């Protein structure tokens, strides 16, 4: 199916279901202007979209329905149950047509005259008459037999509506697009999960029994059961997976509101919202996430003025990244704000008696930063409604750790902070290694086991002791060992060091690797993690317990807890080591850039920031063609791509293939011909010698060699002035300066559709979803040649927007084109009063483009 059509169907059916509910609410509160506005806008969007897609039948029905709603809105018609029923009938007709449309991808032939007549009559102030035969599907025009229901009638007859709801059809069809998902109560999923978990356990028990019996008649069936259960388990786990986008869907709003409240400018960027995780985890991570983002807004990002003074862009950036890493999901919250004020943290720590003066001076900044995770530590100068109540990060930390996750913070003063959260994907079923120590069995989550080492006394691989501390030589380093027997205070006749053989479970907490001494190791099996009884929850070395195949209960060991239980000193060391590593890495990362090194004429290697390069291609010389003015071109993804040699003296030929760096700018691609691609390096770019030569930014020492950093914009200009000729240039003004258009429309559908349309026509488009956002851009000093704005938008509508713009100096003279399909005479006048330069029907592409070029030419002439 056509993507646009598909998107339209989804968006419209969503809107329709909202409408159904809203209309019923309207009937109960007929005088709610907000509700009316909302309903009107939804129908209006449907109508506008139909027009754009060329669906005349749908459009007429929507149009008539919208008319009625318009009258409601303007107070010219009274909202009563009959007229609402008629509007609902109109919506039902739209739904029926949509169903057909979805099935056939074509608008069905049909006649809605009776319905439209009834709607129009109502709009004209006549009685609400619901036609009996809606005929949305019938191909032959059905004779309308209007059964008048007088608006004043006390008993509206319900039958006609029922008929409309069940249009005559050969066979009822399920809506594929809309009906492909169903809503299931979370409790049901939870219950399923519990049942499946039990099933898994039972299966494990059966398999255990099977293993002990040499020959059993059950073998085949049990194997089959085994597979089915595994599939089932996987399936049920999947049903519980949800994209993390659900957890942070509210964040843009939170950030937006907060930023406004505090007079800050913040751009929230979110990446990886499709990353899935168990809904239980999702629920648990939601609040901490919101809390941390609020913190970033409140304490992290500075006020605009402060940022400008610090030499940063006025708008702060908070970035959220989510991705999978093993059985974990990693969420990073990064802001480019002022970072933590370590001096104040230090003072505060001393003041609160959390650290001593001596500690304070001895601790590194990163160690000091970790103080914010301590209970009762809040540094906000004032306690605001936003944050700073002292129940912040410690609660976040506790909650994350409860899920078996970790949280790490790195902050650089003046540059921002980054919080990394690592949480397991699911809390229920994990793979675990069963070990034994002093006659008792324990489970260790497989995810925390880096490797297993068998140690034998008096061999090359044995436990050695420094005083009483056991260590193991591993990969050329000494690894600290922790005796499980000691940690768990298990008494047994044979101590660790009296044993001939033991197993070391190598695990990692943060950046510290250590080994846990166990006495025996058994299988790895899937276990269902059950929380430990509240009465035992204070024992930190266990993260849960489970029932094994043989029905016995085992405790699940938590390496984090074991690390903590070994004593504060070790943990402090771990923290120290970890932060140091991170500090170094961060310092390194902050100033470096990935550079692509290549050769193209001359001796010095050349470099270009890798982020600018879209692709590296090896183009066959044979496939290179020449355009009229001898410009080499190549067919690339169905388009002609100009090729520009990096070295002006370069001549094609000699080789069969030529390496080419592909750059893209404004939807056009250009190939830069080079001799040889050398390498990609991570380097700090410090251009030392500015260059007078065109196409070179200057020279820098990269990878120990003097290299030329090229200025790609020069080549792009070169490619396109040659390639596109001068004709287009004139149309767009000087030096390829494209006209900047801002598109304001609340419907993502329209934004998605109009943006490429305008781009293809050579405009530089910035699309925003609300007038408020547009005004924000204005405040930030953005500049546009023309603004295209929708009229019907939630919050601030187009008229209001235009009025506000004219009050502002910056954009006072920017022409605004109103985009609306609701273009009655009254609205046109209203639009002119508000200061719109033109009024264009939303669905008329050509009219829009004409109007744009007309207005832009006029403005240019005037200036």
């Amino acid at each position: 199916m056509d993507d646009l059509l598909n998107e339209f169907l989804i968006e419209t059916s969503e809107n329709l279901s909202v409408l159904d509910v809203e209309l019923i609410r309207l009937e109960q509160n007929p005088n709610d202007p907000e509700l009316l506005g909302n309903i009107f806008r939804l129908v209006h969007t449907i109508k506008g979209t139909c027009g754009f897609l060329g669906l005349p039948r749908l459009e007429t029905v929507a149009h008539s329905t919208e008319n009625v709603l318009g009258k409601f809105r303007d107070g010219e018609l009274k909202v009563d149950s009959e007229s609402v029923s008629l509007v609902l009938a109109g919506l039902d007709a739209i739904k029926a047509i949509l169903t057909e449309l979805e099935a056939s991808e074509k608008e069905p032939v049909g006649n809605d005259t009776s319905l439209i007549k009834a709607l129009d009559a109502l709009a004209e102030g006549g009685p609400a008459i619901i036609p009996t035969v809606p005929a949305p599907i019938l191909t032959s025009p059905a004779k309308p037999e209007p059964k008048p229901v007088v608006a004043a009638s006390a008993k509206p007859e319900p039958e006609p509506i029922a008929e409309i709801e069940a249009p005559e059809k050969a066979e009822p069809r399920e809506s594929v697009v809309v009906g492909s998902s169903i809503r299931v109560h979370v409790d049901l999923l939870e219950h399923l999960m519990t049942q499946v978990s039990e099933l898994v356990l039972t299966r494990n028990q059966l398999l255990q029994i099977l293993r002990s019996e040499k020959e059993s008649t059950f073998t085949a069936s049990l194997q089959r059961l085994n597979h089915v259960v595994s599939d089932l388990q996987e399936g049920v786990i999947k049903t519980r997976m949800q994209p993390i986008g659900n957890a942070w869907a509210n964040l843009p709003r939170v950030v937006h509101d907060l930023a406004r409240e505090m007079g800050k400018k913040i751009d929230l960027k979110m990446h990886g919202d499709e990353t899935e995780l168990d809904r239980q985890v999702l629920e648990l991570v939601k609040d901490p996430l919101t809390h941390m983002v609020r913190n970033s807004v409140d304490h992290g990002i500075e006020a605009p003025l402060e940022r400008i003074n610090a030499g940063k862009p006025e708008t702060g950036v908070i970035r959220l990244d989510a991705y999978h890493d093993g059985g974990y999901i990693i969420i990073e919250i990064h802001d480019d704000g002022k970072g933590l004020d370590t001096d104040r943290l230090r003072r505060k720590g001393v003041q609160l008696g959390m650290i001593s003066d001596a500690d304070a001076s001895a601790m590194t900044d990163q160690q000091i930063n970790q103080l914010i995770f301590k209970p009762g530590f809040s540094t906000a100068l004032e306690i605001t409604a936003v944050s700073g109540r002292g129940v912040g990060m410690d609660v976040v930390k506790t909650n994350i750790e409860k899920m078996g996750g970790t949280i790490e913070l790195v902050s650089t003063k003046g540059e921002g902070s980054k919080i990394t959260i690592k949480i397991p994907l699911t809390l229920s079923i994990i793979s675990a290694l069963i070990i034994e120590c002093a006659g008792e069995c324990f489970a260790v989550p497989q995810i925390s086991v880096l490797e297993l080492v068998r140690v034998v006394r008096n061999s090359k691989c044995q436990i050695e002791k420094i005083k009483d501390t056991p260590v193991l030589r591993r990969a050329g380093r000494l690894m600290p060992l922790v005796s499980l027997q000691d940690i768990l205070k298990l008494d047994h006749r044979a101590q660790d060091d009296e044993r001939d053989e033991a197993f070391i479970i190598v695990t990692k907490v943060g950046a510290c690797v250590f080994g846990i001494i166990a006495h025996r190791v058994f299988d790895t099996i899937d276990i269902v993690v059950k929380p430990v009884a509240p009465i035992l929850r204070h024992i930190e070395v266990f993260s849960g317990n489970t029932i094994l195949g043989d029905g016995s209960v085992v405790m699940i060991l938590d390496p984090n807890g074991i690390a903590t239980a070994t004593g504060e000193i070790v943990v402090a060391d771990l923290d120290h080591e970890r932060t140091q590593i991170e500090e170094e890495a961060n310092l390194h990362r902050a100033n470096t850039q990935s550079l692509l090194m290549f050769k193209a004429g001359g001796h010095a290697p050349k470099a270009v920031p890798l982020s600018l390069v879209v692709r590296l291609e090896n183009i066959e010389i044979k496939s290179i063609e020449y355009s009229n003015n001898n410009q080499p071109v190549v067919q690339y993804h169905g388009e002609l791509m100009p090729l520009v040699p990096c070295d002006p003296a370069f001549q094609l030929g000699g080789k069969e293939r030529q390496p080419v760096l592909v750059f893209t700018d404004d939807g056009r691609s250009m190939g830069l011909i080079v001799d040889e691609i050398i390498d990609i390096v991570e380097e700090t770019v410090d251009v030392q010698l500015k260059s007078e030569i065109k196409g070179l930014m200057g020279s820098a020492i990269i990878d120990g060699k003097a290299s030329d950093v090229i200025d790609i914009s020069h080549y792009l200009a070169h490619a396109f002035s040659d390639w596109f000729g001068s004709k287009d240039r004139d149309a767009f003004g000087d030096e390829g300066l494209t006209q900047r258009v801002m598109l304001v429309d609340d419907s993502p559908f329209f934004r998605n559709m109009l943006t490429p349309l305008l781009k293809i026509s050579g405009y530089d488009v910035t699309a925003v979803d609300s007038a408020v956002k547009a005004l924000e851009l204005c405040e930030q000093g953005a500049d546009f040649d023309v603004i295209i704005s929708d009229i019907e938008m939630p919050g601030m509508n187009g008229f209001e927007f235009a009025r506000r713009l004219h009050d502002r100096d910056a954009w006072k003279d920017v022409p605004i084109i109103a985009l609306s399909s609701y273009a009655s005479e009254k609205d046109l006048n209203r639009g002119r009063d508000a200061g719109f330069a033109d009024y264009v029907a939303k669905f008329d592409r050509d009219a829009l483009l004409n109007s744009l070029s007309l207005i832009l030419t006029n403005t240019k002439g005037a200036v």
Partner: protein
Amino acid sequence: MTVIATTSSRNRRTTVETEIATLEFVTMTIEDQMFGIPVLQVQTVLGPQTITRVPLAPREITGALNLRGHIVTTIDVRTRLGLAGKEHASGMNVVVDHKGELYSLVVDAVGAVLKLPSAEFEKNPATLDPVWSDVSMGIYRLDERLMIVFDVERLLDLNRQVAA
């Protein structure tokens, strides 16, 4: 603090006194002393079970057992009451449900279910051992012996600091 606790518990006991007019009790014995738990609080009674020890757990917790796929924490009532523990604390398990979690009270023996009239119920004697007094709701005077009614919630709260 102590005063407040005593008053509130006394109030609670008064209400219990009237409520348990016709309650049934599961009876059990430890070292010949008879105890009772309202039958509605008891999930099931199990014979001696394989119990997994939980290292680092409080003394009173002997471990965990598997009851039809549910993990039940076992509590040695003997230790809880400050009596000398047996060498291998295995006995009858009285499984109770407390706030959605299952706990097993390990006792020496489990007796019959008795239906007792409230007339025979009275509060703890003032001189009763403070630990016992703390976990006891009151005493039933039976024909041949006395039965202490356990306050399960308090019995399971191992953190209660009773001034000995």
